[in-house]
């Protein structure tokens, strides 16, 4: 199953020792994988932003049907090789509709990336808030929030997503809804990580010192804890992002993704599966994109993690031999 938070791995949950902010960039830049991942992500973001211009450069838009390009008797597969690749349709056309695949994929990048980023943002915001409150609050509050988190983690995400999507009025913008649904159903992991971190951090002497200095709980959370939580949270978010990209695809596969004719990678992928033999290009393109994207996020996230963790540098070799 693809919907659901990544596990609270030890790497993500472990106390990442505070590192000075500046050298992180230097350390990141010096990693080839991180660099490659970063470049891919930047390209993807650029593609998403420039979708209208890219489609215009090709001379196509993502919604116009091209019936003449299809072999209707053969189920609507595109005429020609590789799913109808031609000078005017760079990546061919969609079987069954004849819509331009290139235009749909670049427009799809907008939705897919936006939903993934938005959902991650929601997960992180809610997760951090709940985790901090649980970690700093009274025992009663902690227990209540911990149970709430358990409920969140126990909810069969997909089913609830199905139900939630059905409840919300049709007029609600779909990408936002997807963000909210994936985000609101998936903050449990972040909350757990943050709570565990907070429980560790709040025992630290500098938090005790802040209390002695007369700081209120809110101030302690803001000034003393949040900065130290940034590293594990960023690390965890980097793990969540690819999962959320795949979640969007999963929900689309179950028919509750973005609404047609809007295109998203998940949407394309879910329709593409029935065409795998007749038009393999059509399946492989979005699958490859999804793969490259999640890979880029994962690789970059990994690199951020180890850049934030100064111990990792010496740990690459597992210490002395």
């Amino acid at each position: 199953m693809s919907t659901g938070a990544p596990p609270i791995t030890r790497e993500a949950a472990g106390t990442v020792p505070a590192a000075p902010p500046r050298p992180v960039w230097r350390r990141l830049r010096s990693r080839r994988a991180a660099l490659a991942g970063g470049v891919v992500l930047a390209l993807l973001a650029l593609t998403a932003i420039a979708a209208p211009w890219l489609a215009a450069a090709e001379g196509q838009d993502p919604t116009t049907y091209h019936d003449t390009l299809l072999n209707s008797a053969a189920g609507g597969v595109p005429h020609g090789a590789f799913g109808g690749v031609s000078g005017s349709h760079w990546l061919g056309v969609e079987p069954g509709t004849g819509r331009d695949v290139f235009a749909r994929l670049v427009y799809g990048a907008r939705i897919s990336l936006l939903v993934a980023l938005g959902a991650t943002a929601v997960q992180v915001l809610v997760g951090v808030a709940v985790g901090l409150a649980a970690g700093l609050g009274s025992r009663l509050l902690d227990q209540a929030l911990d149970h709430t988190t358990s409920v969140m983690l126990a909810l069969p995400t997909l089913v609830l997503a199905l139900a939630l999507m059905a409840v919300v009025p049709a007029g609600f913008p779909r990408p936002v809804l997807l963000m909210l649904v994936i985000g609101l159903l998936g903050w449990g992991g972040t909350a757990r990580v943050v709570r565990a971190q907070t429980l560790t951090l709040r025992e630290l002497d500098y938090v005790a010192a802040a209390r002695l200095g007369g700081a209120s709980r809110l101030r302690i959370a803001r000034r003393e804890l949040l900065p130290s939580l940034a590293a594990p949270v960023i690390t965890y978010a980097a793990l969540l992002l690819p999962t959320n990209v795949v979640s969007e695809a999963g929900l689309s596969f179950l028919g509750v993704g973005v609404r047609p004719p809007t295109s998203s990678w998940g949407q394309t992928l879910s329709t593409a599966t029935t065409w795998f033999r007749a038009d393999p290009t059509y399946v492989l393109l979005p699958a490859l994109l999804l793969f490259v994207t999640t890979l880029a996020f994962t690789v970059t996230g990994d690199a951020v993690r180890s850049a934030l963790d100064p111990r990792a540098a010496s740990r690459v070799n597992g210490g002395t031999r």
Partner: protein
Amino acid sequence: MNDANEPLIDIAGLTVDFPVADGNVRAVDRLDLRLDPGEALGIVGESGSGKSTVAFSLLGLERGTGARVTGRIRVGGIDPRTAEGAELRRLRGEVAAMVFQDPLSALDPYQAVGDQIAEVVRAHRALPRKAARARAVEVLDRVGIPDAARRARFRPHEFSGGMRQRVLIGMALACEPRLVVADEPTTALDVTVQAQILALLHEVRRETGAGLLLVTHDLGVAAGAVERVLVMKDGRAVESGPAGQVLATPREPYTKALLSAVPRVDAPREPARRTGDEVLLQADGLRREFGRRGAAVTAVDGVSLTVRRGETLGVVGESGSGKTTLGRMLVGLLPPTSGRLVLDGRELTGLGERRLRPLRRELQMVFQDPVASLNPRRTIGESVADPLRAAGRPDPAAVRGRVRELLERVGLDPRWYDRYPHELSGGQRQRVGIARALAPGPRLIVCDEPVSALDVTTQAQVVEVLKDVQRDLGVALVFIAHDLAVVRQISDRVAVLRAGRVVEEGPVDTVYDAPAHPYTRTLLAAAPMLPAGALD
């Protein structure tokens, strides 16, 4: 195979460089060292002087860290840098064996200690499993583990610190090495246990005739355990010679400085200052339990204390005796399970966090660990400024000015306001901690082992700062430490804590010179001492 007269350790011009992000750290610089079979050598020096690096390079343990080792090293005729396979195995364990500092983390927590020793034995001797186990029991017995056959099946956490260190020494002995390398084998232990371990090492050496290389920053330990010492500073050997001679009549200024910084249990403190008799803080029957019913631990068990205005109360006791718990209760960071705490006539116990906050400024604390007590993501200036802001001093310029004053007060450069903790040394960080404690203008500061993480020279400087502050500002101090000597240096009165109870309390000189309680006597007897007359 090797000539018996060949030195056990033969090091000449040893240089170790660690490449780091911005350059190179030279940990050891052209060091010469020789150790004959059966001889005992101590390496002393302040933190970061390269002692451990030398010890590690003897066994080739620097491999994989990227260290560059040049010069000549022979250990039992083997070059640890190039040895591979069978030769490396012979070097590690058979020729030389290492005893590490932290006895808990140096053992696999998941395996029975007997199995761990047996594993080492089997790596060197073609013994069946059973025989290896028997050997493990044998060495455990040898290092004084009572009921060794049964205890061999225990996992490390089921042993006390001292017993764990015995296990490690047992492991070192398992293959009858010609050289034992011990890197700070007693720093993690209490004085009483420390004495036992040193005695054990001594005995082992006498029996097996193995050579000993003892790395320590504690000159007192070196004084009692080895015949020769080598003093290191910044990777270089500063002075070396017979222990008695180097420690009693040092030639080099560095050695002298090192020695003079060592607090001494037997040195009486400067004439007592006049302190008021006015009671500032009164603790009555403080008790604190941890854990749930049934498995509860009583960390502090009915402690009554008074702290008078402007005086220093020393609190000593071995690890786990409840010192930190008591200190945190005194400043209101930890609510007591029972008992009363009265500050200047105001009852503190039972106040909620909100009601307590205005009173907080009166009671401050300096923490033991200078790394953990400062937020690594905030500048030191901000950390010191926080209590000022919380006390309602909104004017940023005024706050900044006051912080600079405070930094200067504790001997820091006021321009360091915007530095981050990692840019400071341990001693400097501890000074920031003191400045922060001073910021709200408290009347009492509890110092929880403020110097035990520091090396002797830095330790002396920080103690000086505290003394100054007290003299100038008249704040009362509760000074917690396990090091009896430091406490004697600074306190007016001292309380000896054992298992959560105060066993003895009184003016410092009385307690140290004429201890009434037997436990105090044991403590004092176990304290390692420099040879009498050193530096006098």
